[in-house]
């Protein structure tokens, strides 16, 4: 892990403060008592298997899902669930797992929509990171490949010069090679510009290798929380948390459980 990250993380007030967040659907809690903060330039990875409550956490954080309890403060102000779009305008962007793109619109349309007032230098900066998008400008997004769509998703979010960027399952359906190229690039930009970055991922290694801090969720609760470098070293514990052992006491027994053939 690069050293400078901790420096960046400690400077300035937190951009996003989530405290005791509990949320879910139809009265059923999908995530319980989640707390974390993200400071400028800090990268937080929210990890866990399918169904652990990661996406629910993000939706509740940006106000798209009402909180059952807890508080969320973004840029020092509480989040208004009645006007979730205002949060995005203030620079707290979330990239949802369906990528939040519009198949009927062209790449150029997306670029235009991402920024009310066009800014050529910002555009150039973003295109520098995703040069492949340049030649796709006039193409409808529905015709792009999965990787290109994901690039557009991130590019679109970066164009708006976000202060906080939350990305849900960026690696979903992408070849690891692409993810390995994109993640560090995004991380570097976050460091440069002081963006607070939240990565929601299934893939532990990829996410932890660029994150400062990691939270591992399972069955709606945080089961492991710590600096990314430490989590990476305690890989066995991470795997146990991941593969469903609720009680981390028996971590050492089995990493991948042995068959109990009857």
């Amino acid at each position, binding site marked *: 892990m690069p050293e400078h990250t901790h420096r960046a993380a400690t400077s300035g007030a937190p951009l996003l403060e989530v405290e005791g967040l509990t949320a879910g659907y139809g009265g059923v809690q999908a995530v319980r008592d989640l707390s974390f903060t993200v400071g400028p330039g800090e990268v937080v990875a929210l990890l866990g298997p399918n169904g652990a409550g990661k996406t629910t956490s993000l939706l509740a954080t940006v106000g798209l899902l009402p909180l059952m309890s807890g508080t969320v403060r973004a840029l020092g102000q509480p989040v208004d669930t009645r006007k979730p779009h205002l949060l995005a305008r203030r620079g707290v962007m979330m990239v949802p797992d369906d990528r939040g793109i519009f198949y009927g619109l062209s790449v150029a349309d997306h670029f235009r929509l991402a920024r009310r007032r066009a800014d050529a230098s910002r555009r150039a900066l973003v295109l520098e990171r995703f040069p492949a998008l340049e030649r796709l400008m006039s193409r409808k997004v529905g015709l*792009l490949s999965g990787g290109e769509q994901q690039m557009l998703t991130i590019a679109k979010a970066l164009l708006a010069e976000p202060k906080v960027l939350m990305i849900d399952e960026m690696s979903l*359906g992408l070849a690891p090679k692409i993810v390995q190229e994109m993640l560090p690039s995004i991380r570097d930009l976050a460091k440069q510009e002081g963006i607070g970055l939240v990565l929601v991922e299934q*893939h532990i290694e990829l996410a932890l290798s660029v994150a400062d801090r990691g939270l591992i969720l399972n069955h709606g609760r945080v089961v492991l929380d710590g600096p990314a470098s430490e989590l990476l070293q305690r890989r066995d514990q991470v795997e146990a948390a991941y*593969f469903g052992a609720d009680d981390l006491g028996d971590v050492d027994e089995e990493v991948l*459980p*042995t068959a109990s053939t009857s």
Partner: protein
Amino acid sequence: MSDAPRSEGGLVARDLTVRYGGVVANEGVTIEVRPGQVVGLIGPNGAGKTTFVDAVTGFTACEGSIHLDGRRIDDLAPHRRKAAGLTRTWQSGELFGNLTVRENLLVSARSISFGSLFADVFKPHKATEAGVEKALEVVGLRGVADVLARDLTLGQQKLVGVARALAGRCSLVLLDEPAAGLDSNESLEFGERVREIAADGPGVLLIDHDMSLVMSVSDVVYVLEFGKIIFSGTPEDARTDPAVVAAYLGVPMEAADA
């Protein structure tokens, strides 16, 4: 039981390819499930597992061939595949919330026609039947048979989904993420039930991300990544296969971090 004779029985899905627009969700996937066998299908999120289930059960158009008990079924509508003995559960349960548990199963056990209207009015059928009661027994839901499905806990709803798939004619059942949302104990218990179901005759294709469950109950495991089968074999072999481990946990990023 995994050494059943190589007959025409069970499910044979050969070379299934599914495309959504420009995205290939399944590419040449071939999977066999023989009667009495539990076959696990695992893979990371977005690997195309549910797409495969949808293709086999007729909810997504696909290329390739699907045979059930020697009969080609890939040109049948979903309800006809069910009638042929191919049943499934849904990731999100998809129960009929306004019906009781038993009624949910009855829907699956009986088909209706115009005659049903007259039968309902003049000579109603009994409000249960043998297959339904047996399925309730197998999943252990007799106690809540008259509760509305929407009032159950998630774990119970999942079991109702399984029972519904078993209630009518069933020679092969596809379980799509049946253990999601169950805690470890429930999951273990569920594994037992899956073995019981298979012991009773039907083949089981188990799709789940709970590795411990899949590994412990499956005779054969297939691993799907990016729409392709990257591994097939015994659970023991899967556990040590580097490609499988990498698919799940991701590859360490030495290069990227340098």
